[in-house]
């Protein structure tokens, strides 16, 4: 789930930069107000772990590759806003250092994975709070699958959003009928690994009484 440059039209990444820019500003303000200094090392380690995990791609039959994200892990441990900023930083560094994902796609990745993924994970974690361990596992799974669904919809919308007078797509050319199964199905499996990762990280890093 790293969208390269040239896949999204300006009709997509322009507004996305606007929305993400506002949310980055809001998130940084909240971070200054609410960040517990004692949590900084744990947040740094979780962010670094997510960064490294996303670099390790696993090939799947059919020629595609997937990777664990750590989105659910960060969301469960640190919440939506901190997760949004941490994952935005991860995607920025990966784009600049390794060309994994494009700079034009950065706000879309931040919004779909950083915000959508963490929000879904936190919502599921809270909804299933009575059963802590399954809740964390489900949060990890949703933290991967929900961004995959959102990315599939963004990619599949490109032929509708950016095309020439004859209707020929100018950027990513495949519609939803292709992108949704192609992007989402492999991530249903990766989500399991992300769920396990979230449980392991929660047991190791979660502060307070929740952690066993």
């Amino acid at each position, binding site marked *: 789930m790293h969208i390269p440059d040239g896949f999204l039209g300006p009709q997509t990444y322009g507004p996305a930069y606007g929305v993400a820019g506002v949310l980055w500003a809001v998130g940084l303000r909240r971070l200054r107000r609410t960040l517990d200094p004692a949590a900084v090392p744990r947040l740094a380690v979780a962010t*670094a772990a997510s960064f*490294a995990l996303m670099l390790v791609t696993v090939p799947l039959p059919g*020629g595609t590759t997937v990777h664990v994200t750590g989105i659910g892990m960060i969301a469960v441990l640190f919440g939506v806003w901190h997760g949004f900023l941490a994952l935005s930083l991860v995607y920025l560094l990966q784009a600049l250092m390794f060309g994994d994902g494009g700079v034009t796609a950065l706000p879309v990745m931040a919004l779909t994975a950083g915000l959508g993924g963490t929000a879904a994970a936190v919502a599921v974690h809270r909804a299933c709070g009575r059963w802590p361990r399954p809740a964390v596992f489900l949060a990890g799974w949703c933290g991967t699958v929900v961004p995959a669904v959102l990315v599939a919809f963004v990619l599949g919308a490109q032929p509708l959003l950016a095309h020439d007078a004859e209707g020929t797509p100018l950027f*990513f050319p495949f519609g939803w009928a292709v992108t949704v199964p192609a992007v989402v199905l492999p991530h249903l499996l990766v989500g399991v690994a992300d769920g396990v990762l979230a449980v392991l990280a929660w047991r190791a890093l979660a502060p307070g009484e929740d952690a066993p």
Partner: protein
Amino acid sequence: MRPFLICALALLASGAAAHESHGTFQMRGAVIVTFEDHDGGAAEGWAFTVLDPEGATWSRGFCDARGQTVFAPDRTGDWKVRVFAPDGHGGEVMVPVDEDLAAGPPAPAPGRSPWIRWIVIAAVVLAVIRFAGRMRR
């Protein structure tokens, strides 16, 4: 995303002739670019866009059963072929074309050094392990 395309590029010999029923035309300096997926299989059905040296779209289409696309550059410069996999993977390869319309070896986009990637991964893993050890103490 790596353009996992080990791009095999072949320059069809200058002057190679193709024939059809109503005449003959010469296909000079056509460039074939072959894309592969991560399994090394042909990137069949992947969409491609060819960009001329000015960045304008030159042609579009889908890779054939061998994962190949062909285009015929008409001027010197750095041409680009962008490829789109249905799952959102893909990438871009640059094809330098000289004054004789001969194509040089394709170059993947910059910024992809596998060994740096593994050094960074190893460094992060070591840091996480050290941090976990300190937390335990």
